[in-house]
């Protein structure tokens, strides 16, 4: 019941990501998604009463809800370019595509993976949909940050998927992954600054000097 609601909200926030037209909006949507991810893990940990899972969801809260969005916002503030995210595909069509991707991930879950119909598998569908949508963001958004966020969304989705179908990876692995995400974001920040300094924009669709 509750879990259903949480997952629903998770998906909705993912769709919000799709229709976001400005970078700040995108970041906000991402934070929202992370929040629901946090809620989900919290629910799980309450259910299982395992300290490890509490630690994990604390990490989710700290990292994905607080730190990373802050970092992203800081980047947007630092590079004082226009806010526009630069959509290669407009929101309406993007939504359609997102729907299609969601359906695809449904097919994937039940035909390819052959999972049994259950709340867990529904959650898995949601996570796959989120992953593919994150992917779609990377493909269809011009600005570098769009791609970064897309990747982070995929990360979230995969985290969700892991905890859904396997009931959470080993604690140590989770920690390592979080650490990795953090490093990734930091390094990407550096590169975004470099790109902005050299190109005076962060529009990756204009970076096409290396061909063939």
């Amino acid at each position, binding site marked *: 019941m509750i879990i259903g609601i949480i997952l629903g909200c998770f998906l909705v926030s993912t769709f919000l990501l799709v229709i976001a037209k400005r970078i700040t909006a995108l970041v906000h949507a991402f934070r929202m998604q992370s929040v629901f991810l946090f809620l989900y893990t919290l629910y799980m940990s309450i259910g299982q009463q395992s300290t490890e899972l509490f630690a994990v969801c604390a990490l989710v809260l700290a990292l994905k809800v607080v730190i990373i969005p802050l970092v992203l916002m800081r980047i947007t503030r630092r590079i004082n370019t226009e806010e526009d995210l630069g959509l290669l595909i407009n929101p309406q069509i993007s939504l359609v595509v997102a729907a299609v991707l969601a359906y695809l991930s449904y097919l994937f879950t039940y035909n390819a993976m052959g999972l049994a119909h259950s709340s867990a598998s529904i959650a898995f569908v949601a996570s796959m949909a989120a992953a593919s949508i994150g992917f779609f963001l990377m493909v269809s958004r011009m600005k570098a940050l769009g791609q970064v966020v897309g990747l982070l969304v995929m990360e979230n989705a995969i985290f969700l998927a892991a905890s859904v179908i396997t009931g959470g*990876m080993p604690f*140590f692995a989770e920690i390592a992954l979080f*650490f990795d995400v953090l490093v990734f974001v930091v390094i990407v920040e550096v590169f975004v600054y470099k790109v902005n300094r050299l190109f005076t924009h962060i529009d990756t669709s204009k*970076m096409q*000097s290396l061909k063939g």
Partner: protein
Amino acid sequence: MVFGLINVFIYAAVLAASVIFMLIFLAGGCAPVSMWGWIYIDSLSVFFLFTTAVVCFAASLYSVGYIRTEVEEAKMSGRKARGYFELFNLFCLTMLAIPFLNNLALVWIAIEMTTLVSAFLVGFHNVKESIEAAWKYIIICSVGITFALLGIIFFYYTSSNDAHVRSLEWANMLSASGMFDPKVVRIALIFILVGYGTKAGFAPMHNWLPDAHSQALSPVSGLLSGVLLKVSLYVILRFVMLANLSVGYAYSAKLFMFFGLMSLAVAGSFLLVQKDLKRLLAYSSVENMGLILMGLGLGPFGGIAAGLLQVFNHAVTKALMFFSAGNAVQAYRTNNMNMMQGIIRSMPFTGASMFLGLFALVGMPPFSIFISKLWILVSAFQGGYYGIAALMLILIALAFAGLVYHISRVVLGNPTSSMPRQKENLSAKLAFLFLGVFILGLGFIIPKGFLDLILSCQRLILGQ
């Protein structure tokens, strides 16, 4: 460049250690060694460790002179040079660590780390192209890696659900791999292949490769195509071994062949129309990955050993090529092959080694790649895959034509501008000679121990 020299000594030590380790390992009859859960070493890891160590040493040796010239020509400040060596060490460290690791999550993180570290080395020059290349590299590879993570999760899922082994440690998973759910494993393997394959430069996920290779500093390009691709291949092989018992090797072989043929085809056509020397070499790496994959795909007919041999041969040969190309690029200040011609006159040693390296690369005797290439082809015929073998021969011929046409012009052509006779620094020459020893030596004879190692790897991969 004191850092450089220190580096050389470090990596000489590493190489010596790896050789000694290999000898001990062989003396122990290739028995896998496992230490407190974190470290697991079998012949496969030893083989890749050795390969990595060799190329890293050569690269460190080459870097000394290369960086000195960079600094002298004021392309690089001394501080930046120090930064270079730090990053270089970090990069090599991560790659050297990977073969030891037992925990798949750690392996995954190490691979991601190699991307993040080498991204700096790719974008080292802070000019538009290099930063663009670095950005593409970092993003595309991270996407791939993320898929790989999904693959790992699927493996973990089936091992925890069907085999009730809630662990990401490779050894444990292998022991339980018999009970994996084939349906899931199939999917998972695809994710792994696509994910790590992006990093290993399989077509059609190879697109980052030519950009990164052409923009990186030449020693790093050598490392990238010499070792990095191979290391990710190593990880893929690990998962294939996990999948063996549930879906059988034939399934992975099919996937390998698919990617192999794709890579061969892409490289074959792109090699013909290149203008940039280092891009050319990058595509030839794609081609060689394709060959290696064909070898692995023909595994049941003795292709795996050939593929692994090819891994080593290509690593050393391509390192040589990238280093000599690096010298040329430094001297001519361009990557464009129409602008740099007559290298053999302006830099005889470099030119000669590049020319010989070319023929080593396209697989002419008496150089080492000839043997492995021939072996792969023979196993293709042995398996009765006549159509595929014919296709391979044609695509190889295409690549051959492209490489010979371009590089022979670069090496022998008339110097466009009145190019003065350049001085070639000693460390580069030493690096060439060091690599040349392997290229020629393995062309003439494959040492028994090395062959045993490779064959035990083959047995391992086939799960015998």
